[in-house]
C-alpha cells in the first residue's frame, strides 16, 4: 500500500488528465445535446430525422468501439486526430446523444400552457424558445445533466485503451510496476469518488441557481420523475 501511496504524483497526474477529459468532453457533449436535442423537437420531419439518427447511432455505439475506430481505423483512410482529440470526440459524441434526449424531453416537459401563453402574447417561435421554454427547460435538464456528467467522467476510464495517460492508465502502470492490484484499485476508486462528489457539488450549486431563477424555494422537491428522465446513461 505504501508503495502505491508514494507514487501519488503519478496518480495525481492521471487524475488531472481525467478531469481535463471530463471538462472538454462535457463541453462538446453539451453543444451536441442542444443542437440535436432541439432538432429532435423541430417541426420539419427531416430535421427531426437527422436528430434521431444521431441519437440512435451514438447511443447504440459502445464508447470503447468508437474510440478504437477513431484511433486505429480513421488514420488508415487519412484522418489522424491527436489521441486526446479522439477521446474527447468519442466521449462527447456518445454522451451528447444522451444529452440530446434530455434536452428534447425537458423542452417537451415544460407545461403546454406555457407554450400557449407565449402564443397568446404573440411571440415569435424563436422568442418562445429563447425567452420562455428554454429557461424553464434548463432547470429541468440540470439533474439529468448532472448524472451524465458523472457518466462521462467514469466513461473516460476506457481512454487508457488509446494511449491517454488518464487515472485508469496510471493505475494500470502502477499495478505493472508494483504488482499491488488491490491497493491500486482501492486508491483510484477513492479518487474517482472524490472527483464525482466535487462534480455533484457543482451541479447542486447550479440547481440552486435555477431554483432562484424560478422563484422556488431552494429544495429538492421539484426533482421528481424527471430526475431520471435522462439518467438512463
Amino acid at each position: 500500500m505504501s508503495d502505491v501511496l508514494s507514487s501519488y504524483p503519478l496518480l495525481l497526474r492521471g487524475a488531472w488528465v481525467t478531469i481535463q477529459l471530463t471538462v472538454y468532453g462535457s463541453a462538446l457533449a453539451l453543444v451536441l445535446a442542444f443542437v440535436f436535442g432541439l432538432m429532435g423537437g423541430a417541426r420539419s420531419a427531416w430535421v427531426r430525422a437527422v436528430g434521431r439518427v444521431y441519437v440512435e447511432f451514438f447511443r447504440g455505439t459502445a464508447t470503447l468501439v468508437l474510440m478504437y475506430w477513431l484511433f486505429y481505423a480513421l488514420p488508415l483512410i487519412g484522418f489522424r486526430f491527436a489521441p486526446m482529440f479522439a477521446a474527447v470526440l468519442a466521449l462527447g459524441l456518445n454522451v451528447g446523444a444522451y444529452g440530446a434526449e434530455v434536452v428534447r424531453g425537458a423542452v417537451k416537459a415544460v407545461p403546454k400552457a406555457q407554450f400557449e401563453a407565449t402564443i397568446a402574447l404573440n411571440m415569435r417561435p424563436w422568442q418562445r424558445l429563447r425567452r420562455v421554454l428554454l429557461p424553464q427547460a434548463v432547470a429541468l435538464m440540470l439533474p439529468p445533466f448532472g448524472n451524465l456528467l458523472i457518466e462521462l467522467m467514469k466513461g473516460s476510464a476506457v481512454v487508457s485503451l488509446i494511449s491517454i495517460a488518464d487515472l485508469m492508465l496510471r493505475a494500470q502502470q502502477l499495478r505493472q510496476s508494483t504488482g499491488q492490484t488491490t491497493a491500486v484499485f482501492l486508491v483510484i476508486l477513492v479518487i474517482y469518488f472524490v472527483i464525482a462528489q466535487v462534480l455533484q457539488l457543482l451541479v447542486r450549486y447550479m440547481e440552486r441557481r435555477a431554483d432562484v431563477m424560478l422563484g422556488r424555494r431552494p429544495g429538492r422537491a421539484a426533482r421528481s420523475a424527471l430526475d431520471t428522465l435522462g439518467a438512463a446513461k
Partner: protein
Amino acid sequence: MIWDWHFAGKILPDLLRGLVVTVEATLLGYAVALVLGLLWAVLRRSPSRVVNQVVRWVVEFIRSTPLLVQLFFLFFALPSIGLTFSALVTGVIGLGVHYSSYTSEVYRAGIADVPAGQWEATTALNLPRRRVWFGVVLPQAVRKVIPTLGNYLIAMFKDSPLLLAITVPEMLHSAYDVGAKSLRFLEPMTIVGVLFVIVSVLSSLLLRRLEFRYGNN
C-alpha cells in the same frame, strides 16, 4: 489495411458466440440490478437514519466510480475473503450491483412520484407496512418507471464489453482474440460495433413501444 469480406465472414460465427455470452451476462445482470435496486430504494425510505444514510452513501459510491475498476475489484479482491465465483458470475454481479445504483434512483423517483395522498390514505386506513409497499406504493411506482428502467438495459448491454477485462468470453473478447491471432482488427472491431448498434437500436425500438403502452398513464 483494406476490408476483407472473406475474413469477415469467417470470424462472424466466433463473434456471434461472443454475442450470446454478452446477451446472457446483460440479462442476468439486469435481473440482479432490478431486484437489488428495488431493495436499495425501499431501504432508503427506512425510518432508521443509520440504515438510510448507509444505503445512501453505498449507492452513491457505487454510482460514482467506474464499473471497470469495480469489476477488477470483485474479481481479484473477493477471493481473498473466501468468495470465489467464476468470471461470468463475477461479471453478472458486477454489472448488476453497478446498475442497481441507477435503478434504485429510478425506483426512488417513482416512489417519490406516488402522491402524498396515497401514503396518507394508507395511514388513514391503518394499512400494515407490507400492504402499503406491496399493495399500494410499489405497484404504482414501478408501473410509472418501466420505460426508464428499460433504458438501463441498453446502457448495460453497452457496458458489457468491459467484462473483457475479467476474462469473460463476451463479444469484444472474441474480437480481441480473433484480432490477436490474425492481426486484423479492422474487421472484428467493426463487426462488433455494427452488432452493438443493431442490438441496441432494436431494443430501443422495443422500448419505445413499451413506453407508448405505459408512459402515458
